[in-house]
């Protein structure tokens, strides 16, 4: 039987991290998460990993496989060449708890800052599919936080103090574009969410396992709304003239 070589990161916040190499038999249809489970079951029961569904739907098993932020349960073993060393590391943007498990609570704190969906009191609750298509794309998000992990504003520039990250622009766009929503989160996104830090380099879109067009459909659409409110003198003038404000 073919064997895969897995170089897995092991460590805790107090011990220096190290890579341990394991040899795992490869079966047909196997994914990286299966290989990690094999290690846990037969070679090293101490290895920590977070997972739930093994169906790419819970967003728990995010890791960096050969440096690419990916879901371990969606990364097939047959894509690696025979004898290739497969490196598996935790997502690097969030603090390490142990081995492949990180503390992603930053994301839950950001989420609390977004004003939720607020329909008008007299909303009819009838809308057309064409009005909800945009929102449905954003609702596919499984909160794997791979986009948060890869975003260079959080990852390399460490701007967690001033930047919400792509996942929360997706969530904001989902409520902002809802036909029944009456809120306006644009000033908050600009002033608190740090939308202007995003330089639209699209890494979030590249890694999203749900294939949400994060940059094109959520972030750029929000940036254009910010332009409407903050950077377009002509639009401001027209608003004044036509709304008599």
């Amino acid at each position, binding site marked *: 039987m073919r064997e895969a070589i897995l170089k897995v990161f092991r460590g805790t916040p107090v011990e220096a991290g190290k*890579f341990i190499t394991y040899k795992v038999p490869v079966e047909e249809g196997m994914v990286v998460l299966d290989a990690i489970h094999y290690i846990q079951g037969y070679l090293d029961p101490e290895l920590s990993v977070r997972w739930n569904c093994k169906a790419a739907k819970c967003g728990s098993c995010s890791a960096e496989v*050969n440096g690419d932020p990916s879901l371990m349960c969606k990364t097939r073993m047959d894509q690696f060449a025979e004898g290739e060393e497969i490196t598996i590391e935790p997502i690097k943007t969030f603090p390490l708890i142990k081995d492949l498990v990180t503390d992603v609570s930053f994301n839950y704190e950001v989420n609390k800052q977004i004003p939720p969906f607020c329909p008008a009191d007299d909303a009819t609750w009838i809308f057309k599919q064409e009005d909800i298509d945009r929102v449905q794309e954003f609702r596919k998000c499984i909160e794997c936080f791979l986009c948060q992990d*890869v975003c260079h504003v959080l990852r390399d520039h460490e701007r967690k103090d001033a930047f919400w990250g792509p996942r929360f622009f997706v969530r904001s766009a989902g409520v902002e574009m809802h*036909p029944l929503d009456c809120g306006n989160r644009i000033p908050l996104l600009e002033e608190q969410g740090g939308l202007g830090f995003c330089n639209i380099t699209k890494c979030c879109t590249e890694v999203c396992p749900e294939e949400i067009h994060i940059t094109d459909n959520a972030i*750029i659409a929000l940036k254009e709304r910010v*332009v409407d409110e903050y950077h377009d003198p002509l639009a401001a003038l027209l608003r004044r003239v036509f709304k008599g404000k």
Partner: protein
Amino acid sequence: MNQTTTSPVPAKLGATSRSNAWLIEPAVIFCGFALFVCYVTWRALYDWQYIEWGPYLSPFFSPKLIFPGWQWSPAILLLWEPAAFRATCYYFRKAYYRALFLDPPACAVGHLGGHKYTGENRFPLILQNVHRYFLYLALTVLALLWVDAFVACSYRGHIRIGVGTVVLTVNCLLLSFYTCGCHALRHLVGGRLKCFSCSTAAHGQFKIWQCVTRLNERHALWAWTSLGTVAFADFYVRMLAAGVWTDISLLQL
């Protein structure tokens, strides 16, 4: 089991655990930019005597601006507009932030800048937000280029379609795909609405938004192909004007 100690966090420029060829994309884009900028600079500043031949006018020199007393290249008066439009384009921003500014060079690849990074929040990059104003100008320029393509269909009072007519028309077509797939246009024509079906006017805007969206999905493709055709259209007219190439007539009435 075999152990090696390392830290998981990349800190340096180019530091990454990625094992695939991540360098190729920024390198190819860098070369594409370099090639185009060199060609345009040479044409606009040093080789600008060849701007038209017969009914064909090079897109770099359209509309034809001739002022008494202006003894420099007319391209100087014109090319700032497409340059500013493309420099503030959301796709090209992505391309040069990666390939030129290396911020980031590729996804999950370490780079410099640290915590003082300000993105598009401060001068000068906050100026990217004027993109829609350059879009208004670009739409005007595009209309003038279509006029040039139309003019290129006749010569000395007769209808004549030459290879040059095809070259200029294909260029206009690709420039239209690029310009009409603009993200700012997508927002302005309908993307800014919360509800697409709430009024007849909104529904009309939705239909336009759908067309712009279809072009927008391939925005990078149109961005590069139109860059290629505009340079080729200019080169073709230049070669005719310099007498090096002859235009083949495809149809004459």
